[in-house]
């Protein structure tokens, strides 16, 4: 019984004449979707499986589908005769384009069998001449196929073999996804044995020595594994010593390694190819010659066995000497190997006459972290989830390792400079590696924004397009826009006479969600504002002396440059005075709050909308009252109408009073902080609101001219007394002209039985709501209809925005690339925008 090995990612061609049994073979060994049959595609494009005139269209469609499957990394089997070289070549091209291996399974059965089966096909019968021709072509192909680029060709030439064959799918050589670490990934060693030993010691490895006292293995007592990014050899003093140790570690399972370009060249030199002995290869060859024939063979085998890259830790970590773009990860092709070992060049040369490297990391958007070497850098830095670990040890720099998953850098200084670099070491922060670049792809929908622990939020193409203009033209710089707050849902409509909103419903919501304690916070009459304060502008890629930013819930700056600076400087002093920098151990922090007065942002809204409605409603109702009074005087029966218009007139005046409370002195800016959102490496959504209010209070005490306190009360929802007290408190607050309150779970971020709980629910006062629902909203016939409002949609949106905002903060705190943070922030704005059709 023969076992046919196939790589689990790749393209498989079945080769054989009509009637050779390909389809039944495919049906036995592969899943239905894995098999693309040319007959079936003829049917799809031409309604007839046997119609040869549609073959061209059928194969175009088949290749398109095959391409999509290979792109997704799925094993794909092509069930077609594939007896002509041109047909095979076209499919091999598809595989190459997606950097996967191609295998062939040839069914070389006696031709009489094909004839017999053909006879049983009925209407789908093929002309016997065609089968003969295919058979001949197959025989010819068997010789030529070896040179066509197949990774493996399995030939089954008897019925028995075909019947007994089984398929074994094997992993690709680079597939180490089941190895989850922890790892210590080590940069380019280049023959620096002493520094490698020092580094491994520092990382906690224990050494084993051979008979000559050479270090021959190193094992970590906690089972950590070293991973070498290649370029073990050349330029440095002891390439053989390094190889001896690393080979020992790989053999014992203590290490993994990929090939660098220097190993690749070394193999060719060792195999006697004509190679320029430059860049230290001459020394290495000399050292190997002196080490003896056995070691030379071992080294040749070892270096030849090194693969181009490793995919580790469930696909979350990729190791390749020169880095690897996402598309090539976990793939196998010549160009994948070339990229992994040599990187890509732009075709230009720099002032040192060396090729300019293509800055692939700048555009990297993959989810896997990529650790690599190849280009000596002045330091190790994460750029778009990639990091170069070559810190030029052989040039007198350092030998560096990245602990994974800890993401800590461990390094030792070179004992001396062993070689002269071709060009000065690059800074990872150079313009070539700018990570602040955003691309249309980052913000073009549909987007599936995956968060680390709160699920995925989908943004449609229309929603994304709707936010593009606001974000591009009106929002503050994306480098400084780290968060947008979610919309806030109101309480469900109250059924109490004369109320549209009442605390009962908000409190009941949280109780139903299983929350036992909530906080009720006074709702200020201002504008939602996010304040970023920073003492380290470089972290935000901002100019020296930059203090932070203050923006609205759609990302717009509130103030002009000078006024903003003044306000932020005040805020900085308050944070200094509270000792918050030290307490939170941070150089930056983001505060969520409310900026007052509302008229600062909304004056034109107040004038154009509210005051205009106020003026017209008061004037119109007053004139109407007069005319109706005149009519009543003339003896007409208008009393009901008059009473109603008089009521409208009172409502119009009450409406005026409502908006007038929002007009404040624009010179007297106040910030009511209600949450610390993020600082340094932390976010604070799981700190309870008591903690947050405590900080807000300290800020207000430190700088009462800027920060104001928020009145609040906590409520145990099981206590009827406390619930009643909260309702009374709200009544007082709103009767005194307050906007209302916001109810939040005391414990902050919380999950209920059916998902995440609303982070806050607003309960607005009766009078305040006039400026939302109109002067006459409390009239019974109006209120009745206004109560029918759907809060569900708004609540779902609030949760989505909340999740995206939190993820943006977490990504910021973790120092993740800007594009990831920006996607989340953009997502919030997209959910808040009017959708636009992006197709024109």
């Amino acid at each position: 019984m023969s076992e046919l090995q196939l790589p689990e990612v790749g393209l498989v061609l079945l080769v054989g004449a009509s009637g050779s049994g390909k389809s039944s073979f495919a049906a036995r060994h592969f899943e239905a979707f894995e098999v693309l049959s040319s007959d079936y595609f003829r049917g799809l494009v031409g309604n007839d499986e046997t119609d040869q005139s549609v073959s061209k269209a059928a194969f175009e469609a088949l290749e398109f589908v095959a391409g999509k499957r290979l792109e997704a990394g799925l094993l794909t089997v092509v069930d077609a005769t594939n007896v002509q070289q041109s047909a095979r070549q076209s499919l091999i091209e598809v595989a190459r384009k997606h950097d996967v291996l191609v295998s062939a399974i040839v069914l070389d059965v006696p031709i009489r069998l094909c004839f017999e089966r053909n006879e049983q096909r009925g209407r789908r019968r093929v002309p016997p001449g065609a089968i003969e021709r295919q058979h001949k072509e197959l025989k010819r192909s068997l010789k030529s196929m070896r040179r066509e680029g197949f990774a493996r060709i399995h030939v089954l030439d008897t019925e028995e073999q075909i019947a007994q064959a089984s398929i074994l799918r094997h992993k690709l050589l680079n597939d180490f996804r089941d190895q989850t670490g922890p790892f210590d990934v080590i940069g380019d060693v280049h023959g620096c044995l002493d520094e490698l030993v020092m580094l491994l010691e520092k990382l906690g490895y224990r050494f084993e020595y051979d008979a000559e006292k050479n270090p021959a293995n190193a094992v970590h007592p906690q089972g950590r594994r070293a991973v070498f990014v290649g370029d073990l050899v050349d330029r440095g003093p002891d390439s053989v010593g390094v190889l001896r140790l690393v080979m020992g570690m790989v053999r014992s399972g203590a290490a993994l390694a990929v090939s660098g370009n220097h190993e690749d060249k070394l193999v060719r030199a060792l195999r006697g190819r004509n190679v320029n002995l430059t860049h230290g290869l001459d020394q290495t060859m000399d050292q190997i010659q002196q080490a003896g024939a056995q070691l030379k063979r071992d080294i040749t085998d070892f270096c030849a066995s090194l693969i181009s890259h490793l995919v580790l830790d469930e696909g979350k970590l990729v190791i390749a000497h020169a880095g690897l773009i996402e598309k090539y990860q976990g793939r196998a092709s010549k160009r994948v190997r070339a990229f992994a070992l040599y990187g890509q060049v732009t075709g230009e040369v720099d002032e040192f006459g060396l090729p300019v490297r293509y800055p692939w990391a700048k555009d990297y958007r993959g989810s896997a972290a990529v650790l690599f070497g190849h280009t000596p850098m002045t330091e190790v830095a994460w750029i778009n989830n990639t990091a170069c670990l070559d810190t030029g040890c052989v040039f007198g720099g350092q030998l560096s390792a990245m602990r994974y998953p800890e993401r800590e850098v461990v390094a030792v200084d070179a004992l001396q400079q062993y070689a002269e670099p071709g060009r000065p070491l690059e800074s990872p922060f150079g313009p070539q590696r700018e990570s602040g670049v955003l691309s249309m792809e980052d913000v073009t929908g549909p987007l599936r924004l995956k968060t680390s622990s709160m699920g995925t939020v989908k943004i449609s193409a229309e929603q994304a397009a709707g936010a593009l203009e606001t974000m591009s033209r009106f929002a503050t710089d994306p480098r400084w826009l780290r968060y947008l707050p979610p919309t806030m849902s109101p309480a469900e409509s109250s059924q109490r006479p004369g109320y549209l909103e009442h605390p009962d419903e908000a409190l009941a919501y949280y109780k139903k969600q299983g929350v036992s304690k909530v906080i009720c916070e006074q709702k200020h009459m201002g504008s939602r504002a996010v304040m970023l304060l920073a003492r380290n502008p470089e972290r935000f890629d901002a100019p020296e002396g930059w203090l932070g930013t203050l923006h609205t819930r759609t990302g717009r700056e509130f103030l002009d440059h000078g006024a903003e600076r003044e306000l932020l400087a005040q805020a900085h002093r308050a944070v200094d005075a509270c000792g918050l920098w030290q307490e939170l151990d941070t150089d930056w922090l983001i505060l969520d709050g409310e900026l007052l007065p509302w008229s600062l942002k909304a004056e034109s809204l107040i004038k154009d909308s509210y005051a205009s409605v106020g003026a017209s409603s008061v004037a119109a109702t007053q004139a109407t009252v007069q005319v109706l009074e005149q009519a009543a005087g003339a003896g007409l029966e208008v009393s009901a109408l008059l009473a109603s218009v008089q009521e409208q007139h009172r409502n119009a005046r009450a409406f005026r009073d409502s908006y007038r409370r929002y007009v404040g002195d624009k010179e007297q800016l106040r910030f009511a902080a209600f949450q610390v959102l993020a600082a340094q490496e932390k976010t604070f959504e799981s700190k309870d609101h008591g903690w947050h209010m405590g900080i807000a209070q300290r800020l207000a005490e430190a700088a009462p001219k800027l920060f104001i306190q928020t009145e609040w009360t906590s409520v145990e929802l099981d206590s009827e007394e406390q619930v009643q007290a909260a309702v009374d408190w709200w009544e007082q607050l709103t009767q005194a002209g307050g906007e209302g309150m916001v109810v939040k779970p005391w414990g902050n971020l919380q999950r209920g039985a059916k998902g995440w709980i609303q982070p806050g629910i607003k309960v607005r006062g009766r009078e305040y709501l006039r400026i939302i629902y109109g002067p006459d909203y409390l009239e019974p016939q109006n209120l009745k209809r206004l109560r029918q409002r759907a809060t569900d949609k708004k609540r779902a949106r609030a949760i989505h925005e909340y999740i995206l905002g939190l993820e943006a903060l977490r990504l910021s705190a973790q120092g993740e690339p800007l594009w990831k943070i920006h996607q989340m922030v953009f997502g919030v704005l997209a959910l808040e925008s009017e959708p636009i059709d992006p197709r024109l």
Partner: protein
Amino acid sequence: MLVTITLDSPVGSGINAMDLSHLLRKHPAKVQNFELPVGTAYVFYPECTEQRTTAALLLQIDPINLVRSKRFRGNSGILDYYVNDRPYAASSLTSVAIGKVLRSAMTGISPSHQELADARLPLTLKLPVVSSRGGHGVDLVSALFEPLGWTIEQQAIELDEEFPQWGDSQYSSVVLSGVERLDVALRQLYVLLPVLDDSKHYWVGDDETEKLARQGEGWLENHPERDLITQRYLVHQKSLVAMAEAQISSADSAGSQQPGDSAETSSVVPLRVERAQAVLNALKEYGAQRIVDMGCGPGALLRRLQADPYFTSIIGTDVSARSLEQAAAALHLDERSDAQQERIKLLHSSAVYQDERLNNFDAIVLMEVIEHLDGSRLPALVSSVFGANSPRVVVVTTPNVEYNVKYPGLDHHALRHEDHRFEWTRAEFEAWAQETAGEHSYGVQFRTIGANDPQVGSPTQMAIFSKEQA
């Protein structure tokens, strides 16, 4: 919303003022109500004597239904909020009520009092709240009603007496008095109230032009503001809006008129035309045939590129989807052949994001675009245009702020357009351009566009970046 109509009987005129009720065909002793889609209309007579009779039309609008019903909302935007002035100000809703409730009076036919219907009567029309929205500071009440022979008594309504610094509101109370046939007076109100208010609430049907002709008969033909009235009366009809906007956009470059754009400069050619021509010339001079017009707005430059077969491939991008719609209409893209649709395309894109779709073009044009971006975002634009797309040629035009002194209408230190985030002097522009060129290995040369004043230079400045001249 209230309108009153008063008929006076001057001594010796022989008119019985109470006959107003016959002309209106509404009983003087009753309060009659009429259910309309937008609410309830009431007609009653607050005074009714032989000397003086006043009829009142009161429209009590249902504010909730107005906002919730799709029928009324349309896409005017004004009904996106529950708080709006529709229940109070005279508007197209008033016209609807007049048209429904006083339809027979508007015909001028009165079986019982035809003589009176045919007579020009001493009438007083009172409108307690009239909006002149969209008047751009010019009050239209006089312009609309005076030519028709009305004497106008207009009292501005203060926006809020508690905040006198805010001044007057957009509303005033208006009393019109004059001698006119009742049907004509009603038809004038019917047409002119929506024109004053300038925000129609309902979908205007195809017969609206015809309706306008009918209601305007006898008074609109020779009205000096006839064009304005027609335009505003029809303004919410979609195809007409598009037509009007296409006209506006053809007179405009970046979707926003700047001083000098339409005014005649030294030559007879408006600046916007000169600017577009200068850009076209530069592109041809540098042999650029495949062009990206970044920030194309409603398509002023695109139309010129489209008309010239020299340009083989054209992409217009804009961050505003609205502008792109206008550009698509101006270019008549949907009527073009496949080949033309392949040649010229529009993309929704932003200059501050890198866009791979714009790679491999000969030239990128940024005509009057950079000044619409905050200064802090300019490096992002430079990085995406010069760094990522990196075409052979980049053409940038922007206002020269020094020239602003030449615009008498412009306040000192004011910018030419409210959306301009900055306007540069020649030195500032050149410094930016030189630095940008240096960083990205381009050569750069500068040109003037428009009249070149020896002291302050030209109104528009242009930089042509080219890789060849690096």
